[in-house]
Every structure is written in C-alpha cells, then in structure tokens.
C-alpha cells in the first residue's frame, strides 16, 4: 500500500512543470558551475606549477645562510566541488629564521587582478543546495494541503488505509523524485571531472565525493520535512508555499550573511597595526644588541672589509669568497651570536601573530556557530570539511605542519652547528684564508706589499681596483663552488586528515540534522493524524 502511494506521488511529480523546470535548471547550472570551478582550479594549477619550479631553485644554494626552504601548496582538487576558504589563503610559504609568520606571498588563486576579489563565485555544492532545497520544498508544500483543496485527500482517506501509511508513502514519493535528481547531478559532475584535462582525483578523493551524496540526501530530507510539516499544519497551500519560501530565503541569504557581520561586531577585530608596532619595537631591541655585539667583535678581530666576491640578501643571506681572514672571522663571530638571537626574536614576535590569528579564528568560529541556524549553511560547513577546504583542515595541513617543519629545520641547522661554522657564509676552506696583506701581494703580482700601500694607491686613483686583477687566486669567486649536498635535510610533509577523522568531525552536525529531522517527522506525523480533511 505504501509503495502504491509512493509511486502515485512519484508519477504525479514527474509530470509537473516544476519538475521539468527544476531538472532543466540542474542540467544547465550544475555543469556550468563545474566548468567555472574547473577553470579556476586550472588557473590555480598553472600558478602552482610556476611557483613550484621556482621553489626547486631554493634548494640550489652554496651556503647555509641562503638555505631557506620554500613550500608551495598544490591547489585542492576537491575545491571544484566545495570552495570553502581555499581561495583566500596564500599558497606559498618560506621558512625564515626571523619570522614565524607563514602567510607569505604567492599566487592568490591565479587572480592577478585584486579587483576580482569583489566578485563572489559559487561552486557545485552551493548550486546544489540552492536549487534542490528550493525544489524539495516546492514538491512537498502541497502534499497535504493541495490534496485537501482539490478534494482528493478525502477520497484517499475513505479507503481502508492508515494515515501514517499515506504520510510515509508521500515522503517516499518525494524522495523517489529527488533522489534520482541528486544522483544524476553527482554522476554528471563526476563525468565532467573525469573528462576534464589536467584534473585527476585519487581514490580517497572520489570517496569523499561519494560521501557527499548521503550527506546531501540527509540535508534535502530536512527541507522535504519542513515543506511537509507546513503542508500538514495549514489548510491553504498558498500559505504553505509562502512560509516555505520565506524559510528558504532566510536560510540561504539572511542567516549566513548576518552571522558573518554579527560575528565581526561581537568578537573584537584584531588590529594589524598593533602587531606592526610590537614587532618594530622587538626588532629595534634586537638591533641594539646586535650593534653592541658587532662593535665588540670588531674591536676583538679588527676590521678590514675586503672580499673578492660576495652576495647577500634577506633573512641573513651572506655569501663570501676570497675575503680576508679578518672579515671571515668577523662574520663567523657575528652569525654565531646573531642567528640564535633572531630565532629567539621570531618566537617573541610569533606570540602576537598567533594571538592575531586566534582572534580571526574565534571570529570565524562564532560566525559558523551562528550560521548553524541555517540548514543550508550546515551543509556548506560539512561539505567544506569533506572537501578539505575548511579552516580546520587548513590549520592542520599548513599552519601546524609548517610550524613543525620550521622547528625541525632549525633543529637540523643547529645540529650541524652551522651558525658557528664558516660554512654558513662561505664555501672556501678555512686553511686557504689569507690576510688582506697577503691577498693584495699575491693578486697584484708584487706591485703592493701591504694592504695599506694598495689603499693609498686606490685613493689616489679614484677607487680603481684593477691592479688586483693581475694574478687570479683560484677558489675566490662564490661561483667556483657547487651547490650544497642536502641529502640529509628534513623534507616538508603534511598528512591530510583521514576520511574517517573528517566524518567524525562532521558527525555532530549530521547527527544534529538527523535529530531535527526526527522531531520534524514526529510533528508532521501528529499534524497529519489530526488533519481536518474537510
């Protein structure tokens, strides 16, 4: 009997104009949303490839002071289905000694034009939730009230059939109508992804996509029940549709936007300027210490600043060759003191930065919690978690593993004792170091006997260094040395959260939805049993 009713409902639904329109919308919008996101993903991939090539060069260094591993994160393929915040964060990180901050530069999702940030984009899950939740309600709003209006409900009840059987039959009928549409949407999207060039999903990723199906069915069940409840509560179907549509608009447009703005006003927005000021102060203090130390070692070693070839850059990068022994010693003593100090300073600066991020996270978490009022937003959050584009995954994958890797990398440098070795800034073996006098004597082929003579001559000739080109000394150019062998260097790795863990994480939300569904079903049942069919 139940099946009979269900099939009748199913055929009825199939013949309606709303089914045709809904199906056509799915047919057009789902492929379109996927094409849009595939394009975006491919742009990201292009950016990633460019950055990755550059990153490989970051290991081709000759001295340890230049060794600052760069990490690029590949774009998340599942962001095609659910974008989440994957497009907001930078994708390239550089491990540095004097900063713990990890939000470095890099391609921002291939959007070269910052103005495009103001265009919002939608993904598969958004479109699915928009259209299907609307149609779930459109199919159920007149299930009971509509039949009452047309007078068929009386006829149905005149048969020897329990009211609950009719209700279950109707429910199954609607599910039968929507289920094929949902599955069709997913199959279509899978087909598009399979056919798309440059995109390939692993088995685990397909599993996550497959998991989206039951999750979306659970969510659409909620909308079906809401529609059914209204239909059983009110006598006129026009009232039911109105209430359904208002619930839909509030749930999709009002609550998520309001939650975000409200969270912003409830959790005090952190001020970037504070961090800038504190960091400036910390840097100044450190600078003072470094300056004092430099003076003292200069007194100790003496200071001539002669080097034949050299290079330098950010975060302590210094590379020398053919320098005087004094300068080499000076540098060694300098880095031995400075580098640990900079690491310590980074820890201090990291406190403020972490607070900043914590506040941002608190704001986001509150917004998400407030948005739980809207069933569609719950679906968004769950699908983001499943597609690894939510904040928890970001933190686990990048922030935490990056911090861990930074610690491991620094421990590696410390274990090799590079800060107090010459290898930190030069590859020239210490036994080949010469004093300034010697260098001048050898290079000038005996024209000058001491550095003082040369300096005097140089002053008279307007800074000319050409006499030193006479006799070359081998191994005094930085390019004479091959890159460092870094076979024992730790490699960055990050484990993506397991599917099971993700499920457990979303379990609470899904269980909540199921509970609400049970309550709604109970209410619908009560209303339907008490429904006045006249």
């Amino acid at each position, binding site marked *: 009997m139940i099946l009979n009713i269900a099939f009748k409902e199913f055929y009825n639904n199939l013949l309606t104009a709303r089914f045709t329109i809904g199906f056509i919308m799915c047919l057009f919008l789902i492929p379109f949303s996927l094409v849009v996101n595939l394009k975006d993903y491919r742009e990201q991939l292009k950016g990633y490839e460019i950055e990755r090539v550059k990153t490989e060069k970051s290991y081709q260094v000759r001295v340890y002071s230049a060794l600052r591993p760069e990490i690029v994160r590949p774009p998340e393929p599942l962001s095609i289905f659910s974008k989440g915040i994957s497009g907001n964060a930078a994708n390239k990180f550089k491990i540095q000694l004097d900063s713990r901050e990890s939000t470095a530069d890099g391609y921002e999702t291939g*959007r070269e034009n910052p103005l495009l*940030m103001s265009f919002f984009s*939608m993904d598969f899950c958004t479109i699915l939730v928009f259209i299907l939740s609307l149609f779930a309600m*459109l199919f159920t709003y007149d299930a009971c009230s509509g039949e009452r209006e047309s007078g068929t409900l009386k006829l149905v009840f005149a048969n020897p059939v329990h009211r609950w059987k009719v209700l279950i039959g109707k429910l199954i009928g609607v599910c039968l109508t929507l289920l094929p549409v949902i599955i069709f949407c997913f199959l279509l999207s899978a087909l598009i992804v399979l056919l798309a060039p440059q995109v390939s999903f692993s088995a685990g990723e397909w599993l996550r996509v497959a998991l989206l199906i039951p999750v979306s069915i659970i969510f659409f069940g909620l909308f079906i029940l809401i529609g059914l409840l209204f239909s059983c509560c009110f006598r006129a179907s026009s009232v039911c549709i109105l209430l359904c549509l208002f619930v839909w608009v509030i749930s999709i*447009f*009002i609550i*998520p936007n309001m939650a975000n703005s409200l969270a912003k006003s409830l959790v005090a927005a952190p*001020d970037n300027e504070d961090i*800038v000021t504190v960091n400036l102060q910390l840097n100044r203090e450190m600078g003072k210490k470094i300056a004092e130390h430099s003076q003292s070692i200069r007194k100790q070693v003496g200071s001539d600043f002669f080097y034949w070839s050299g290079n330098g850059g950010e975060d302590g990068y210094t590379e020398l060759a053919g320098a005087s022994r004094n300068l080499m010693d000076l540098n060694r003593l300098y880095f031995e003191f400075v580098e640990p100090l900079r690491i310590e300073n980074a820890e201090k600066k990291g406190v403020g930065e972490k607070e900043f991020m914590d506040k941002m996270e608190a704001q986001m978490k509150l917004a998400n919690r407030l948005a739980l009022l809207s069933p569609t937003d719950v679906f968004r959050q769950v699908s983001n978690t499943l597609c690894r584009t939510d904040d928890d995954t970001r933190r686990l994958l990048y922030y935490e593993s990056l911090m861990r890797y930074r610690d491991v990398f620094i421990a590696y440098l410390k274990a090799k004792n590079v800060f107090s070795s010459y290898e930190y800034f030069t590859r020239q073996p210490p036994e080949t170091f010469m004093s300034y006098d010697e260098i001048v004597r050898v290079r000038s082929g005996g024209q000058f006997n001491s550095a003082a003579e040369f300096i005097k001559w140089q002053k008279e000739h307007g800074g000319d260094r050409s006499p030193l080109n006479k006799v070359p000394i081998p191994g005094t150019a930085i390019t004479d040395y091959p890159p460092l062998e870094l076979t024992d260097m730790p490699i960055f790795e990050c484990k993506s959260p397991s599917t099971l863990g993700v499920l457990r994480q979303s379990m609470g939300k899904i269980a909540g939805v199921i509970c609400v569904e049970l309550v709604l079903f109970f209410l619908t049942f009560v209303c339907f049993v008490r429904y006045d069919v006249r």
Partner: protein
Amino acid sequence: MLFHIILREIRSNILSLRMFLALVLALTVFGLGTFIFVVNYQIDQKICERSRQNTIGRMKEAAAKSLIFLAHRGLNLDFGPRSNSFISNSREDNLPVRFAYDSFKVHNFYVWPGRNPLTDSCQPLDWMFIVSIIISFTVLLLAYDTVSGEKEARTLALSLSNSVSRGLVLFGKYVSVIISTILVLIPGTILSLLIILSLGRISITRGTLAEIGLFLAITILFVACITALGILASVLTHRANVSLVAALSLWLLFVVVVPNTALYWAQSLFPIETMENVTQRINMEKENVEKGMPKGWKENRQSIAENYAKLENGSLAAEMRIRRDWYNQMFRQYERTRLITALSPISIFEYLCEAVVGGGYLRFRKNWRDMNSFQPQFLEFVKATDAKDPESPHQLTPYSWSGGSRKPADFSDVLIFKEKAPSIHERFSHAGIYLLIMFFYTAAAFALSFVLFIRYDVR
C-alpha cells in the same frame, strides 16, 4: 477606473499573508542590519583612524630626520569606512582600499589587510542587500499570481467583462504591486534611520539625505523592473504555481547565477597579462634604459651624479609606464565583466547604488586617479623644498638617497592627501549606462507582458 483597480489591488495585497511576512522580515533585517552596521562601522573607523594616525606619525618622523628620508618613505593611504555605507557598502570589504606610495610613485593597491581570510566573502546587511534580496523576492511573491492566480480563481474573466481595457487592468496591477512594495520598504528604512539617529554615532547630513532620496528613486525603478518580470512570469502560464516556479527560476538566475559567474567571464573572456610577464617586461625595459646611457658614463666623475639620476628616473618611468598599463588592463577587465553581469537587474541595481553613495569601484577609481595626480604635486613639493637647501646636490632619484637634502623638513608644509567624494557629474556618468539598461529591461518586460496579456485566454 485605473485608480479604482489600483486601490482594490493594494487593499487585497495589504491584507495578504505574504505582505505581512515580507514586512516582518524586512523590518527585522533592516533593524538588525543597521544595528550591526553601527557597531561595525565604529570598529572599522577606529582601526582605520589608527592606521591613518600611524602613517602621519611615520611621515612626521621621516620629515624630522631629513627631507630625503621623507621623499623615500613608503606610505600607505587608507580609505576608511564610509558613513553612508548603511545604504550600500558596495563590496568595499573586498575591493582595494589601500594605496602604497612615496613621493616618486603610486606603487600598488591592496585589499584591506585586516580582512579576515578565514571567513567566506559575505555581503553586509545594508539597504542595498535588503532591497536586492528581500524586496525583490517580495515583489515576485506579489506579482507571480496577479494574472494567472486571478485566472485560476476565475475573477479575471469577471474583471475583463467590465468596460475596461486590458492594458488598463494590467497597468493597474503593475502600479499596485510597486506601491505595495514601497509600503513594505518605507517602514524598514524609517526604522533603520531611527536606529542610526538614536544611537547618535553617525551624523546624517543633508548630503546623506539627498543620497537616501536618490536611493529610494532607484529602488522604485528597480522594483518596477522586477515587477515587470514577475508579471511576465504570470502571463506566461495559466497556472499560478507554474508561474511561481518560473518567477523563482528567473530570480535565482538573476540573484545567484549571473553575479556569481563574473569571475569566470573575467578569466575566460577578458584575460590579462600575468604578473610574471609584467615583471619580465619591466626588467627588460630597465635594461634598455641602462643600455641607452652614454658610453663610459660611470667613469666620467663630473657628470656621474647627474647620469645616475637620469638612469634611475628613466627606469622608474619605464616601470611605472608598464605598471600603469597593467593596472589599466585590470580596470578594463573589471569594467567589462561588470557589463556582462548587467544581464541581471540585481547587479545593475547594485552598481546604481554604488553611484548613489559614491562608493565601491567608483570611489576606488576616483581615489586612484586623484592619488596619481596628487603624487606629482608631492614630488614637486619635495623638489621645491630641496631647492631651498644650498648644501643639497639637487639630484633627487627614486632609489638612491644621496641626491637630496639631508636637513629636516617642516612637517606643517607637507602635503597630505585628502579624499574627495565623487561629484554629481561623476556619479551620473558612472550610472548612465546602467540606468539605460535598467530602463530598457523594464520597458521590454512590460511590453512583452502587455502583448501576452492582450492575447491571454481567460477561460
């Protein structure tokens, strides 16, 4: 007769549940949205004011050190929140609001750095949002069954049996929907204004009142457009629930699909040069400038300072030429994409609101233009001050610090950029094309529904 029809329709609308629900929803969102706006405005204002003070502090510090230090000091210019953004925020949370400049160049523009990267992009609940979502939705709910609903209830045949032309009936229904919608809108705006006035943190000037008036005018135009579309959906079918689905699909298309695919159109139809490419071009141009220097200029001690200045100014000019070209590409890409999204009346309404409040992209472009004409003035000021110092070599260059005065500058003379709101003319020329499209849309939809209504079978 027309008056009679309108009055009857409005009366039945006012008594309807949908009008009541819409009114409740609109009032709630107007109230809450405005309240949140006032709180957030203060927070943003405070942060932005601090950033501005810090920038001025940095300028003062630099000026106290030396003129050349001030000339090279990289500065940020922030555009704070607008006090009229309760009407329309115009997506300023996601548009660039910070310019980086020094006396030699306006280097780049950025989105506000304090923006939370962890939350999804969302729209604040300003008036524009409420009108474009809730009010447009209300309009559809009021309009979808004006014809097909009456046909189902069999009252349409009765109405038309009177000595009244079909056009008049349709027009009467059209006007009555617009008026009913305005009846939903007005209490909300009044509530919103009352909240702002009673909290007293934001002053409402005469300019703001004028903007509110303009906003209401544009809203009426927008409502007229959506009503025409709703009535079109109604005359397309003979059954009210089919026209509801049609109207909702149309609405979904305009609210969700068209605006949210803008990024795709931008990337695929109007691609711009990649950053890599631009950097390469800049480097090449810089090399060319260096090659173009006279031979052996580094050895010529007498003119070396002059030549250095020439080289550096030349390569900066080359870089800025390429950069400006690139930025113009960005602006064009953005503007063209917006024209594509003008397919949706809701996007058009958003752009019109932007023009009304002088915010969003209009504000950005105006400030960018103003900033680019301010920077040469700033440089002129630096040069003039430098000329007063007899000890300076008078060779100001963008990259090296040796060519300018090392004496401190008097900060009270230093030019500071002040933001100017876009003029009426600028706003109008920004809105012109969108106004035209909107008029066209309304007229086309109404004409089509008129034709269909004339041929409508009332049986």
